[in-house]
């Protein structure tokens, strides 16, 4: 790896790198996957993860690093759950994020569509967002892709309802919005 990277032989930097990875993973991640990404031995990686978990617990941090189902993930610490619940009920997450909206747009216009195809169009990882859209009932699984075996997704009735449409045919056509060559050049 390049020489300007943080020096992971140093425990402090290794801890930082592990924290950065854990912050962006959406579902429990195995020690091996973390060790792979950091190109560090599994044993050393495991020790560092356990040390981080202990440190958070001792400090009474609101972040709880726990091992569940074979992997590690950041959870909110149990005792603070009531505040999280209050925040959620206050509607902090009522509105879809931009990333979720863009992903939903790709699914709506390309359905049924696989996760990897959506990721290719958006140019970013969409796993977390797809899980959110599923959880919010805006999309659903609809079989698997014959070629790749990946799950196919489509929009739901709730999606149409939220957009005020009676059927998918009412979605505004995209062609008039996809600009002439000039405007594309400009971007």
């Amino acid at each position, binding site marked *: 790896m390049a020489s300007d990277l943080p020096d992971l032989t140093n425990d402090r930097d290794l801890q930082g790198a592990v924290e*950065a990875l854990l*912050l*962006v*993973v*959406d579902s429990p991640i195995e020690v091996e996957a973390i060790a792979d990404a950091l190109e560090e031995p599994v044993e050393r990686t495991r020790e560092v993860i356990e040390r981080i978990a202990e440190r958070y617990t001792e400090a009474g941090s609101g972040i709880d690093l726990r091992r569940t189902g074979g992997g590690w993930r950041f*959870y*909110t610490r149990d005792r603070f*759950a009531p505040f*999280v*619940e209050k925040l*959620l*009920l206050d*509607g902090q*997450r*009522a*509105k*879809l*994020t931009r*990333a979720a*909206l*863009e992903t*939903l*747009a*790709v699914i*709506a*216009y390309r359905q049924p569509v696989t996760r990897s195809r959506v990721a290719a*169009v*958006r140019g970013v990882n969409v796993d*977390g*967002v797809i*899980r*959110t859209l599923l*959880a*919010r*009932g*805006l999309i659903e699984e609809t079989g698997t892709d014959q070629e790749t075996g990946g799950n196919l997704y489509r929009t739901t009735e*709730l999606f149409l309802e*939220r*957009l*005020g*449409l009676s059927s998918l045919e*009412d*979605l*505004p*056509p*995209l062609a008039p*919005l*996809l*600009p002439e060559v*000039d405007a*594309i*050049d*400009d*971007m």
Partner: protein
Amino acid sequence: MTEPTGRFTVRLSNFEGPFDLLLQLISQHELDVTEVALHQVTDEFIAHIKAAGDQWNLDETTEFLVVAATLLDLKAARLLPAGDVEDEDDLALLEARDLLFARLLQYRAYKQVAALFAELEGGALRRYPRSVALEDRFAGLLPEVMLGVDAAKFAEIAAAVFRPKPPPSVSLSHIHMGRTSVREHAALLRIRLAGMEDATFGELVADCEHTLEVVARFLALLELYREDTVLFQQEDPLGELRVRWTGGSVEEAAEAAERDRAGVDDEEYR
């Protein structure tokens, strides 16, 4: 003409160095734009691009087109015939020139800001935000989801996501710069025609140095015709084209010229 760094440099009889420096000197009034042979600069730039083969730089080319168009405007304004200093025309011309200077400076300032934005974005892109699905135990608490957009807006978002990445070609949209030029020439023609009342097309373009200026002046005349301030007379096909001013007094023409020069900005900011 091309430094080892690959940056475009210019070699003229009275200037040699990076294109950017040439621009800077002109904007600081240390070099007279009328003494810069723009066609030579253009030739050198084309040679520079050709020498680079497939490696030419889109940003550099785009910047060159914008700056060259501005310089051309500037030069056109400067080359117009000058009479007495007290002459209304001259004052208007001076103003027009300053406007072009200002526009050039302004464009450069925003370009620097854009570069800063790119740097900031570069830094921000190295920080990945936490954006993960909610823990299962909280999922049931989420309030009813809202999209926050209507169907039309939703389609716009989809279109933006699907819009293809730019192909590596030079945008022609910079040619719109020519519009500025036409407005500028319309302003000039108003004042001149109001004074002369009647002129041939040949007389009106006698002071033009480049074909592009003649074209701009012709387009300006069509604009004036459309707003009923000039009449055309041509006895036979390909014969002499005469232009007659019907747009009122010299004062009225000068006012209209002011509006032309201030252009869009004036309508919005006053």
